[in-house]
Each structure stands twice: as C-alpha cells, then as structure tokens.
C-alpha cells in the first residue's frame, strides 16, 4: 500500500498502513478517513514536537489518577503504558458495535439462564453436555438456581477486532469479572489533559453517564438498610488491584476483601470497627471459584465460608453471579450462531471467530485437514491441569514435537481443543518522535445491565500490539493501551465525570470502616512513626561518627545498643564496628525487622492494602520514601547522614499532609492513634536510655536532639541541660508535641472520635488504659524520673495499643 497521499496531512508523511489489513486512519487509496480528518488537522496545528512533549506527561498523569497495574512476575507497580493517540470510532461504526454487543449480552444471559436452569439446550442437542461440564467455570453448587435479582450478567466485556473487509468481529467474551473499564476511565482522564481542545472540538462521547447508570443500577439492588454496594477484590497481589481500588473510589463503593466478610445465620456481614454491618450486593472482581472455601475451592483464602450458600438463598447478589464465567469458553464460540437463533430467534449481528470444537468428530476432521491454516487453543481455560500448557498457538508455528503431541492428544481427547480461524486485526496510528506508525489493536467494549435492558460504555479499552504482526494471536502479551473515542453524530450535552449535582446526595462519612482497613491504618501509622524514631537514632549516631571525647563515645555506644535492641542492626560486640558503620548498616538492612528500610516497606504494604482510602499524593509519598531507602549507599558517613535527613523530611511531609489533607474520619483517627502510641513509646525509650537521673550533659544533649526539642530547651533555660528540666520537656510538658504527655492527651481526644461499640468491657478497658497512662505521669514529677518509672510508662503505652487492638481489630465472633 502506498503512503499517505493526503495533502492536509503532512504530519502523517511516512505513515504506511500494514499490508493485508484494514487501517483505521487511512483508506486503501491513502486518504485520511473522514472521521479522522478534524483530529489530524488538530494534530497538524499542535505539531509533532509539542505532541511528543505532551505525551511525555501521560505516564505522570496516569500515576496521578492512581492507574497502575502489577505484573505477576514483578513486585513493582507499573503505570499502564498508554498511547498518546486514541482510536477514533465513527458514529456509524459505533451503531453497529452497540447493537451487536447488546444482542450478544442478551444471548449470554439467556444461555446462562438455560445452562444453570432447565438445561433445555443440552437436552435438545443444541449443545453437547461436555461443553458445559468441561468448563472449570461451571460451578456445580450454583446449578439449578436462579441468581438473586434474576440475572447472571450485570457487567459484560467483549473483545472486538476489525477484519480486512472492515467488519467488526467478536474475538472473546468476558463474563466472569471483566477488567479494563476502570483503566479506560483512567486513560480518558489522562488523555483529556493531553489533548483537551481536540477532544472538545470532536464531540467525543463521554463515559460518565455510563458509570452513573451502572452505579445506580447496582445501588438499586441493595436494600436501604444495608451498608451499601461493596466491590469484592482478591486484594493487593492481584494484577488489576489498582483498577479495583480506582473503580471503588470512583463509584463510591466500599472496597472489600474476603476476610472483611462474615456469614452468620445465612446473611452476609461486613466486619467493621463498629461491629458487623449487613450487606447484600457485591460487585465481584474475585474469580467465583475463590469466593467460598467451604463449597468451592477449599484452598482459597480470598473468599468467605458460606458465600455460595448465601448466593443460593438470595441473601446476597453478586455482579456477576457466581458461575457466569461458564460462557467464556472458546468451545461455545462454534455454537453461538445456532444458539442465537434458538434463544433469540435472531442472526448474530456481529460474527464471532469461526471455531471448531474437536469433541465433535466431524469438526475434528476439519481441524486436522486445515491444521496449518488455524490457531489451536484450549477449548476451556487451561487453569485446571489440562494437557495444554501453551495457551492458543498458531498451528503452523508449532515445533514438530508439539505438533505431534497436540495431534495425539486430539485423538484421545478432542474435546479439550478448538481450532480457530486466524484473525488479521486492523491497525491504528501510534506516535513516536519521528511521526506516526500503524499498529494492530483490539478493542474491549463494556456492557452493563440496567433495570430494563443494557447500556454500552461509549468508548473502550484498546490493546495495541508492540509489533507489526497483525495476527490476533500475537497479541497475547505486551503492547500498550489506547483510549477509544466514539464520535457523536451531533453536538453533545456536556456531562461531568463527577456525578451531576442533582444526582449527588450529600454524604459525610462514606460507608463503614472495615476491621482490615482499620488494622492497616493503625499499622501504617505505627510503622511510619517507628521509622521516624529509628531514623533519629541513626542521625544522632552518624553525627557522632569518629568522636574521641569519652562522653560522646559513650553516647554513640548507647545509641548503637538501642538500635540493636530495636532490631535495626545485628547484635554484635561494640568494638567490631564503628559508629558510622553501624549507622550505614541500619540504613541498608533488608532483613532486620526494625531497620528503617524494612519499616517503610511494611508501611507501604499496609498502605497498598488500603489504596482506596489514600489519596494518590499520600501513596506517592510513601512509595517515594520506600524507593529512596532502597537505593544503594556509598558507605560514607555523609551519605548515611544525608539519607537519614531526607527520610525524616519525607516523613515530616507525610505527617503534615495527613494533618492538612485527610478528612477527620475514623480512619484518620486510627492512623493517628498508631502514630501517637509509637511516638510515646519512642520518647519513653529515648528517655530511659539518656535521661534518667544520673545522665550527663552529653547524654542529655543527645536526648534533646532525639526528642527534637533543643530549640525549645535553649529558649527556656539558656543553660546546659539538667536532667529534671529535660525530663519535664520530654515527658510532662503537654505543649511539646514530642512529649509523652502530649501523646497521652491526644490519645484521649482520639478515642472520642472512634465509633461506639457494643463491647462495654473492652470500651472500658481502652479508656482505662489511657487514664492509667495519664495517671502515671500525674503521680510523678520531673525530679523522680528513674528507670522503673520509664519502664512503667513504656508498658502503659503498649497497654493502650493492645486495648485498642482488642476492641477494634480483633474478631468478635458473637452474632450482631
């Protein structure tokens, strides 16, 4: 094909469509297609260098909106790579797609209803029984039941590709728990900031209305006395967890994990800090097999025992229903044209890939005869120990051994295989600094059930290949995403991505705080504060590196032994390492439970489990600190000192951020309780080591430094430190934000912000623990601070922490 011959598009010079496929941007004669023309003109005006400059900001924008994904084989979060160029879909094409995917959603729903219900399709011979029984997603405990609310599918995803003749084809059905809609939303927001004027001028259809409808439909299925719709996620280790957190925040649903749920007397409850709260509607992103270890996968730790029974009795609705993944089977692809006639009395509006299920002898003969022209794929998913380990493959590309193995297995168990027509995808432009290039892509479209029908998200999630190979089969890995812009026929009515003012109910507290979230909040606060306390020790130690003055050496040795006691450095003989070495060791330890990098990593883990509760800024601060502390150190004392100083600054920034930007919710109070307890403990322990009555001036100076109180002290006393005056400042002074008394007073105030609890004994025990803490300080004076008093203060802070955990974080098994 020739390169672009269009005179308006000098920016497209060098764009050469791929041979053999349809190109979205230009026609066979090399002319820009009409619906792309205004877009290309806009690009022309902005110019290639400016476009590339803007594209560089996309990854940052995605991070800002919280769009990440986690690759299973890596520990790090990655920003979803997003193409700076959207795929434009004309209004005419969209009408075809919309009608086609709605019809297919109806078909999927009707088929699920029969497969789990009367089984007429199998009994009448329309579908062989083995197609149903062979799917690992045919959940036998759900057979014979109509799901609560009467529907299996609430949210359906379908992958489309465009054939060389310009027709759209269905490549895959996603009926279990389709991913991508949240990423599509994130992609849209990032791109809207990159090409604002273009998007506005082109009348690109907005996504907000679709999500409003989806939200309203699910909310209507939840009883008013329940705790609201919850989004059930497998948790932070899932590849698409960030999408779950992002969608939960966007839709205003509570993000929950299996351990947040409890089934009592057949009803489903949320474990919250205020006790068990009834729920009845779960938007499910957890694969159904993992939902219930009693009736489904017994090794699952992601679900809750009793959920399957609750789903059967209708006590809880799932969107999508447990077992809806059944109709994702490739094996069913060969039957949909016939089933569409049988169930709907209609021909398929969008064809799906031609497929032959080899459990049928005649179909197997076709596949054998055309072997090299086809893709060979597992008939069902291959998760449950089938014979097929390599997913879909182009038969002609199989090695001789694999080919022989596949043919032998097809002979014995043909029903495990399908043959599928190889699909050539269309291409869409992607931008590089040099210009635009065509890349094959497929489009995932989302359909949501409404009370009386179906609605399609006017957009989609495109996966764009990183290679030039237009065969759909080469798309299994890699590549990037692209936004899909559906163009409107006429001018659009503007709708914000935020819910419209009329639809918005004023809510002060969003939902309930789950016990798991509370626990992570509490430990986030504790780990961060403990890291702060430890960094102060390291800083104090590093500044004393190389000291020869005996008093200073003594202080350094005591700092070292405190770091040992805290588990920040290995416990070895003092003379085996210098102060500088000990400080550097603490800053680099990855296997010492009390070392700053380990504490920050734990804080990060706690934070990652409550992503929906943290703003992207708060998350980024913790993430940045973690990255900083895991970089290599050169070992010089100055480097260690600098690292510790920077760490303390980051932590101060987070504390300031939490103070200024977090709503004073229960979650905030719990984070603060964690911090206050931990700070009280640290100051008590500093004082026990450096501040008891026989302490010399060097020790007292170190204590003031650790307690961040040198300036206050100097302004008050103008003299060298005296033990009683230092103790007064660090223990008893309620106005010093680092003092034990200050922590105690704040703990008392924070308790008032916690939800009421029915466990009167435990409530009393918690209040008493704070009273005891305050009483311990009230009954002593700065003059009689000795080791025994410091030990009792230490114990009193720990007692507050354990009383708090007993009341709000423990599982109280009694029914509501």
């Amino acid at each position, binding site marked *: 094909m020739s390169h672009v011959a269009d005179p308006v598009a000098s920016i497209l010079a060098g764009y050469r469509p791929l041979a053999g496929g349809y190109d979205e941007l230009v026609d066979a004669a090399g002319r820009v297609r009409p619906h792309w023309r205004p877009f290309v003109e806009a690009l022309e005006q902005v110019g290639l260098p400016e476009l590339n400059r803007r594209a560089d900001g996309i990854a940052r924008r995605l991070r800002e909106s919280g769009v990440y994904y986690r690759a299973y084989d890596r520990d790090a979060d990655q920003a979803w790579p997003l193409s700076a160029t959207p795929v434009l879909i004309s209004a005419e094409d969209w009408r075809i797609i919309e009608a086609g995917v709605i019809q297919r959603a109806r078909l999927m729903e009707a088929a699920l209803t029969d497969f789990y219900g009367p089984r007429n399709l199998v*009994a009448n011979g329309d579908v062989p029984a*083995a197609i149903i029984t*062979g799917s690992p997603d045919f959940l*036998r405990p759900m057979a014979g039941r109509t799901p609560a609310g009467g529907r299996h599918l609430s949210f359906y995803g379908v992958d489309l590709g465009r054939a060389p003749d310009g027709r759209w084809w269905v490549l895959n059905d996603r009926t279990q728990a389709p991913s991508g809609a949240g990423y599509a939303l994130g992609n849209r927001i990032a791109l809207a900031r990159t090409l604002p004027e273009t998007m506005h001028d082109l009348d690109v259809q907005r996504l907000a209305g679709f999500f409003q409808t989806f939200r309203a439909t699910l909310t209507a299925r939840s009883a008013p006395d329940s705790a609201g719709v919850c989004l059930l996620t497998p948790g932070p280790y899932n590849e698409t967890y960030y999408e779950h957190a992002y969608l939960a925040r966007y839709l205003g649903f509570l993000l929950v994990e299996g351990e947040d749920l409890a089934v009592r007397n057949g009803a489903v409850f949320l474990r919250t800090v205020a006790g068990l709260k009834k729920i009845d509607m779960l938007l499910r992103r957890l694969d159904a097999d993992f939902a219930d270890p*009693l009736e489904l996968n017994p090794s699952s730790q992601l679900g809750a*025992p*009793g959920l399957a029974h609750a789903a059967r009795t209708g006590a809880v609705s799932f969107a999508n229903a447990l077992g809806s993944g059944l109709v994702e089977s490739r094996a069913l692809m060969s039957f949909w044209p016939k089933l569409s006639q049988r169930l709907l009395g209609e021909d398929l509006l969008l064809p799906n890939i031609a497929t032959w299920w080899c459990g049928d002898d005649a179909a197997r003969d076709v596949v054998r005869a055309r072997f090299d022209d086809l893709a060979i794929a597992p008939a069902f998913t291959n998760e449950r120990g089938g014979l097929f380990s390599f997913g879909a493959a182009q038969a002609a590309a199989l090695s001789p051994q694999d080919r022989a193995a596949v043919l032998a297995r097809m002979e*014995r*168990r043909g029903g495990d295989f399908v043959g599928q027509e190889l699909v050539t995808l269309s291409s869409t432009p992607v931008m590089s600094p040099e210009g635009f290039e065509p890349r094959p892509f497929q489009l995932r479209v989302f359909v949501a059930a409404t009370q009386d029908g179906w609605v399609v998200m006017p957009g989609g999630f495109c996966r764009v290949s990183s290679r030039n190979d237009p065969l759909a089969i080469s798309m299994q890995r890699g590549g990037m995403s692209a936004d899909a812009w559906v163009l409107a026929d006429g001018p659009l009515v503007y709708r914000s991505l935020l819910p419209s003012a009329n639809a918005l109910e004023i809510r002060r507290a969003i939902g309930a705080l789950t016990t798991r979230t509370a626990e992570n909040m509490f430990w986030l606060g504790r780990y961060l504060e403990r890291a702060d306390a430890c960094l102060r020790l390291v800083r104090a130690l590093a500044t004393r590196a190389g000291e020869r003055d005996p008093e200073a050496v003594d202080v350094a040795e005591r700092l070292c032994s405190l770091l040992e006691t805290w588990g920040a450095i290995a416990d070895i003989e003092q003379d085996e390492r210098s102060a500088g070495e000990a400080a550097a060791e603490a800053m680099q330890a990855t296997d010492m439970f009390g070392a700053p990098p380990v504490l920050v990593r734990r804080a990060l883990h706690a934070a990652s489990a409550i992503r929906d509760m943290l703003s992207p800024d708060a998350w980024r601060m913790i993430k940045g600190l973690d990255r900083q502390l895991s970089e290599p150190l050169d070992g010089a004392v100055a480097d260690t000192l600098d690292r510790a100083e920077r760490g303390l600054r980051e932590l101060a920034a987070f504390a300031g951020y939490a103070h200024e930007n977090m709503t004073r919710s229960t979650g905030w109070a719990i984070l603060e309780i964690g911090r206050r307890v931990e700070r009280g403990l640290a100051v008590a322990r500093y004082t026990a080591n450096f501040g008891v009555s026989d302490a010399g001036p060097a020790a007292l100076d170190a204590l003031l430094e650790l307690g961040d109180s040198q300036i206050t002290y100097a302004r008050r006393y103008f003299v060298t430190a005296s033990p009683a005056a230092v103790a007064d400042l660090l223990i008893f002074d309620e106005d010093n934000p680092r003092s034990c008394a200050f922590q105690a007073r704040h703990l008392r105030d924070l308790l008032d912000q916690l939800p009421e609890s029915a466990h009167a004994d435990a409530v009393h025990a918690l209040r008493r623990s704070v009273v005891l803490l305050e009483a311990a300080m009230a009954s002593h004076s700065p003059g009689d601070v000795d080791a025994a008093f410091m030990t009792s203060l230490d114990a009193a802070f720990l007692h507050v922490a354990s009383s708090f955990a007993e009341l709000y974080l423990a599982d109280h*098994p009694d029914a509501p």
Partner: protein
Amino acid sequence: MKYRIRMISSTHYDTSAPLGSHVLRLKPRESAAQRVTSFAIEIEPPPADVIEGVDFFGNATQTFTIEKPHDVFVFRAIAEVETTAAPPALDAPSPAWETVRARAWADADNSPWSPAQFLFPSRIVSLDDDITAYAAVSFPPGRPIVAALDELMRRIHADFIYDVDATDVTTTPTAAFAARRGVCQDFAQVMIAGLRGLGLPAAYVSGFLRTMPPPGKPRLEGADATHAWVSAWCGPDLGWIDLDPTNAMLPGNSHITIGAGRDYADVAPEIGVIVTYGKQALEVAVDVTPLD
C-alpha cells in the same frame, strides 16, 4: 448385609479457635444397592444451626458454624445400612471402550450422574501423560471396556505398594504415580486419571469396608479408615461399574458407599475453615460391624 457404622473424628487446636465453619459429608448414599435405615450425628461444641443439604452429586451435607471459642472439635456419626449389591459378572459382553468414549463425549445429558460430568480434570485429579500411557496398555483397540477396566485395576493393585505414610489427602495422582505408593485414595485417583486421560468417564467413590472380615476371609486393606474406590461408566446399557484397585476386586456386599463425585475434593468427609494459629491434631476412628 446389614451394618452398623460408627465414625468419630476429633481435632485438637493448639490455640483456641474463635470460629469454625464446616461441611460434613458422612451420610451413606441411598441407592438401589444400599438402604440407610438410620443415621445420627453429634457435633461438639454444638453449633447454633445445622443446615441439611444435598450437593450437586447427590451427597447429603451438614453445614454449620461454631461461633464460640473452642479447643476441640468433635463429630460422631452412627449409621445403619443394608447392602444388597452383587458385583457384575466380568465375562458378560460389554461394548468396545472407544464406543463408550464416543458416546460419552456426544452425550446430550448433563444431569449430575451423566458421563459428561466425569470426563475432565477435577480439583485433585489432573491429566497426566505418564499415567495415561500406563493406562493405555490395558486399552488396545476394540477391547471390551469391562475387560480393560478389570485389567487396569489389577495392574494398579500389583504395581503399587499400599503405604499409609507415603501420601496425604492432598497428594495428586501424579505424585502417587511417580512413587507407585499410597493409600486407597491414591490408587483410586491414579486409575481415574488414567481413564480420563484416555477420554473415558470415571468417578470417585468414598465409603467403608467391614472392619473384621467374615471367618476364613482375609482382612481388606483400608478397613480401619474411610475407604475409596472407582466407578467407571461402561455405556448406556451397563451404566456405572465400581472397581476397587486397592483390593483388586469389584465392590459388593462388603463395601458401603458414603459419597461419590469427581475426586476426593467432592466427597471429603469434612471440610472446615477455622481461624486458629499453631498446629492441629486429628484423630479418626472408624468401626463397621455386621449386624446379621
């Protein structure tokens, strides 16, 4: 034969469990060959509410949650059963195994005991090329299915060592096959993996054997615990035929069926989800006495 069956299981937790959710599958199955005249179950500590149910494959279930802290979880079941099964004759005519296979894959029935339910890998039984090749030796082209099944059962009995220490309830047939060792569950699951690998429907049956043999007969392996064997589909006329590879026999009057499904995971006598830390110690005792 009439039998009284007693089964006691007690689990001791190192630290008290605040909560435990359990499903029991202990009630012997009713069938043409087996009648249950009485069945009773006791649970300690007593749960608030026991939900009686029947699972997909027709096994009776008791589902309950213990909602108070407990160190010990005990259940006792007592059943009286009358068996009338006589094993089928091995020399009766049966269809070629390939005919049975073709029929199972083309079946237009997906009710719970249709052959199509038992063709595929299941939770514990994956397909395994080595096991399939081992099984294929007994399945030359055109051989009547019952003769082939009988030979495979006898080969497993001869080639495998009964060893209660070699495996546990989670051992896969692949691991048991590699070791050529195991207990009844492993013998049964290896045979099932081989049959499914060849494309034939095979089910897992759990049950009991009489504890003391009749005078003059040897004591059977597996008599002191729950037992397991295989059921294989032999075409629409013969239906399901049971085979016990642990004892190389066709089960008859001495085998009492409790549950049946695709593998052990479908019929486990107890599945529990408990919140506890530390170790658990499990003791199980089974006693099967003839009443006449």
